[in-house]
């Protein structure tokens, strides 16, 4: 009996010793790539340490919806971010067939550990807090918040944000809209926060919310293509602005290269052209103050 107990006691001890030993092995081996990483900052195609060799893996959430993507198929290169991804890939030296897409749910994109993509394009707002845990590229778009209301309702034709105070407002989880609503509209009742854009739209259609606040290009798209009876009441700036960047793993070697690519696209006018092509109506909504 005593012997058996001793043996039983030894099993976990040995197991721990073994695993702790392995753990420290991992430590030393994982240090090596980071030291080499700092030295290889050139953006030549052959030096790029991509997630998969010879392929640029771009992440985005599913469904990939307009105007950022079209037909829920990022690989067709349509939509603002769809087109942008291929423009960045081109700058980095990848041709269209060397770009692969990965479905990365938004709340997975910032999880610790190795990323399963090279960069993620998902209308992600850059904030200093977020940047503690991931890398952001140079911003490629500055978004305004769009207010979508039922056409002909009391809220259609408002001129100031104060007029939204008594409204139940729907927003999408993970977007700047929640903070924008809380800080700038300060509605009497809590905003409703839905997990994805489809649920926001459903709630709006079923009159569970009086208005929805989403990025302006999306508001315009929803008005034109998805909702029969909606009007864009206006736009306003999120607190501290709302700049979108490509998301990369913390201290990724690719960050400076993606930065360089976006800057080049900005300088040669490609970025403006893509923006104009897919987000054309953005300036047409009245400003709400």
């Amino acid at each position: 009996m005593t012997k058996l107990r001793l043996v039983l006691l030894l099993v976990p001890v040995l197991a721990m010793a073994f695993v702790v030993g392995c753990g420290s092995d991992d430590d030393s081996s994982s240090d090596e790539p980071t030291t080499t990483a700092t030295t290889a900052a050139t953006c030549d195609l052959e030096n790029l340490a991509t997630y998969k060799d010879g392929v640029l893996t771009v992440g985005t959430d599913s469904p990939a919806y307009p105007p950022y993507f079209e037909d829920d198929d990022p690989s067709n290169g349509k939509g603002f971010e769809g087109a942008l991804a291929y423009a960045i890939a081109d700058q980095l030296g990848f041709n269209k067939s060397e770009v692969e897409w990965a479905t990365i749910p938004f709340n997975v994109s910032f999880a610790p550990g190795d990323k399963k993509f090279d960069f993620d394009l998902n209308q992600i707002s850059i904030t200093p807090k977020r940047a503690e845990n991931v890398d952001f590229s140079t911003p490629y778009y500055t978004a305004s918040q769009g207010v979508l209301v039922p056409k002909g309702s009391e809220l259609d034709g408002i001129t100031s944000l104060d007029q939204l105070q008594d409204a139940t407002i729907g927003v999408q989880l993970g977007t700047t809209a929640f903070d924008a609503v809380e800080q700038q509209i300060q509605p009497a009742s809590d905003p409703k926060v839905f997990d994805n854009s489809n649920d926001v739209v459903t709630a709006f259609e079923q009159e569970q919310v009086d208005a929805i606040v989403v990025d302006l290009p999306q508001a315009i798209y929803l008005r034109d293509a998805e909702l029969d009876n909606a009007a864009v009441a206006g736009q306003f700036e999120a607190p501290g602005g709302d700049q979108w960047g490509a998301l990369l793993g913390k201290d990724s070697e690719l960050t400076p290269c993606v930065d360089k690519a976006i800057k080049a696209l900005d300088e040669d006018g490609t970025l403006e052209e893509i923006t104009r092509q897919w987000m054309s109506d953005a300036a047409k909504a009245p400003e709400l103050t």
Partner: protein
Amino acid sequence: MTRAAPGERRAAREKAKLARSRRGQAIAVISTIVVFGGAAAIVLNSSGWPVVQEQFFSPEAFKTSFPRILEGFWLDIKMFMVIEVAVLIIGLLIALLRTTGTAALFPMRMLAAVYCDVFRGTPVVILIYLFGFGLPALELSGVPKDPILLAGIALTMAYSAYVAEVFRAGITSIHQTQTDAALAVGLTRVQALRYVVLPQAIRRVRPPILNDFISLQKDVALVSILGILEAFKIAQIETNRDFNYTPLIAAALLYLVVTIPMARILDHITARGEINS
């Protein structure tokens, strides 16, 4: 003299027993230290720990998010308290319906059986989705639009189906002779059920029902999919804002604060039940 011998032997036996129990305690302590210390050592020595610590256990993120999460948790508490009462009543009614032998009630019995099968067998999250987004879409007059109410109805349906089955098991576990004896002393069928069968059945099923309630107290978090700002949803918002998962840990702690006491009450009742029988 002959009496001293068993006394000495008893003392020796006691001493040996004490020594054994002390050794047992010592081994338990060492084993605990080794197992938990070892597990902690593995986690703390892992190469990813500093990042995980920062992204999951940040005191700063905890402090800033906790007050709002707590505020949202109050809604969770209110919801599960009301739902629990509704579940007990509806569950018992369905169980009674399913256990009666009255021929005229056959269609109701069938309906009750289908109710249990359907609502117990469907994932709760789907029920909430269907009730929250499906019912208002019918645009029937009188159908509520308030998502809290709709989610509450969905949870009540799901859990009353579970609890009905537990009640039914309790009722059928009371031996037929109990009813027979009650009828023999002049009680009506309803009286026999009310004063003889149900009190015994309910006492017997308290542990499994409390167990279902523990599960319910966590599942109220699912109402968040209807956009309701309860603890889990607020934790998600905070997590997504700063890319730090600590608010989810804060929410988890709050759910534990209500489920752990429930578990201890359950242990207590179970232990007492064992002594009684």
